[in-house]
């Protein structure tokens, strides 16, 4: 492996031979295979000589670059890279092994010889990231084995390979050609963090239906759901992609307080607003008991009549396998699309409510998405997380087919991926993004 090789390729190589759960649960850092050696004071020349003599490595020096501004691509092929200001060298895998043996027998040159570790931004759920990465890599391998991908899909490979959440990969948003552009997506929830850096420059229409509270998300749930439905295609740094309809037009309706509560009246006010704005997809990751209520059923019908589709969480009251709770309201209204949740293994999430109202399922467990600053990202679980996956996929489908309302709902169910669960658990199956 040449020094400074793409970290994504390195992760892929590592994941071929490890069990992710064991790796995440262990106390070991994730080693890249390279070694980092530090030099004793004033031993630069001796250290360099040792590296060349023992390993025969081609050595790149930081002083070779103007202002020591190292061009990563410029050192590919080198077996060692020396940071002269630091008195530290990064050694390629094979080179490092040779130095390891040499340094234990050499006094006075090397102060330490340690493994290089992968670093991740704070807030990343490591297991989530690696599972998503592994799933993306496996999908690409399978696609290539089955006959390869069309040229038009090659551009999306970079997103899949560089990392996306397991949910984004399983609904195939990572390989979709579509973005949700032009489609209005309303998220009726706790609001949104308008200062979140991943959404800078993204126009957002918003309105609060909670007396005394602005649309700013003082809870987090709304920001998380919005991220899943419409987060960026390429989040900054090494953050995996977590959003489906990355060019969807975002409408934020604050119908739940910063404490996470609302009333039917606040929910209906938000639904009324979203329909008045003709939002093609309206996402509601909320619920209560009882129902179906006439008012939610009528609201859902009014939405469909206005070419809007309402998608709602089925609820988290189950304790499977022993107890499957009925679908809560508003999801249990026949005019509203009820969403169940599955895990990364595509098993039913233990908490996912069930019943004849379930129409479709989405990734719900261990879902990584945006969160209000300064936390920035968070991993949480629930049918609340499954719902915006469906919302985003509905937006992609609306964009490419022109379908709306009930026709959109029917087609979304038609292209879902069947799973091995009864329809009362997952409806038509796992939602899929149109390719």
């Amino acid at each position, binding site marked *: 492996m040449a020094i400074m090789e793409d970290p994504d390729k390195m992760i892929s190589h590592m994941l071929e031979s490890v069990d992710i759960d064991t790796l995440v649960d262990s106390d070991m850092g994730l080693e890249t295979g390279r070694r980092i050696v530090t030099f004793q004071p004033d031993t630069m020349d001796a250290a360099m000589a040792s590296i060349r003599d023992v390993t025969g490595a081609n050595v790149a020096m930081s002083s070779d670059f103007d202002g020591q501004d190292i061009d990563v691509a410029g050192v590919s092929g080198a077996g060692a890279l020396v940071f002269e200001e630091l008195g530290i060298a990064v050694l390629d895998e094979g080179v490092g092994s040779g130095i390891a043996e040499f340094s234990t027998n050499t006094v006075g040159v090397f102060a330490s010889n340690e493994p290089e570790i992968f670093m991740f931004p704070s807030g990343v759920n490591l297991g989530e990231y690696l599972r998503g990465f592994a799933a993306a890599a496996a999908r690409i391998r399978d696609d290539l084995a089955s006959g390869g991908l069309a040229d038009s899909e090659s551009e999306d490979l970079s997103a899949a390979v560089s990392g996306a959440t397991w949910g984004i990969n399983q609904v195939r948003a990572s390989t979709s050609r579509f973005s949700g552009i032009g489609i209005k997506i309303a998220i009726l929830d706790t609001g949104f963090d308008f200062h979140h850096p991943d959404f800078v420059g993204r126009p957002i229409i918003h309105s609060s239906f909670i007396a005394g509270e602005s649309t700013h998300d003082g809870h987090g749930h709304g920001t998380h759901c919005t991220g899943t439905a419409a987060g960026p295609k390429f989040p900054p740094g090494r953050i995996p992609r977590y959003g489906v309809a990355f060019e969807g037009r975002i409408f934020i309706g604050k119908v739940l307080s910063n404490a996470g509560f609302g009333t039917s009246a606040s929910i209906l006010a938000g639904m009324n607003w979203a329909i008045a704005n003709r939002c093609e997809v309206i996402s509601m990751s909320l*619920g209560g008991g009882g129902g179906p209520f006439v*008012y939610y059923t009528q609201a859902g019908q009014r939405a469909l009549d206005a070419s809007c589709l309402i998608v709602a*969480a089925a609820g988290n009251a189950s304790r499977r396998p022993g107890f499957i709770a009925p679908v809560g309201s508003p999801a249990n209204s026949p005019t509203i699309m009820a969403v169940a949740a599955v895990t990364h293994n595509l098993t039913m999430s233990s908490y996912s409510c069930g019943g004849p109202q379930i129409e479709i399922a989405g990734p719900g467990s261990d879902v990584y998405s945006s969160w209000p600053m300064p936390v920035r990202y968070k991993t949480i679980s629930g049918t609340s997380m499954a719902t915006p996956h469906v919302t985003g996929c509905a937006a992609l489908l609306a964009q490419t087919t022109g379908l709306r309302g009930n026709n959109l709902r029917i087609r979304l169910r038609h292209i879902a991926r069947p799973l091995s669960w009864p329809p009362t658990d997952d409806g038509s199956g796992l939602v899929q993004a149109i390719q």
Partner: protein
Amino acid sequence: MSNPVEFIVTLAPGASAVEVSAALHGHGFQSTSVLHELSMIVGLADPDNAKAIASVHGVAAVEPSQTITIPPEGPQ
């Protein structure tokens, strides 16, 4: 009005929100908002008046508003 409860009044097809709202007022219903897109009226009323309210011409249903929450986060 003692112990007012928030109700959602769903209008029958073709009913006028303005006319129904006026009629509801006569039965002790205090409208707080009209949701035109949904054909609904939200307001406060004594629970004992619910039946009378439901009998007003143009009313399809009268239901109490309920508390809605974020479903408790599922276990990871």
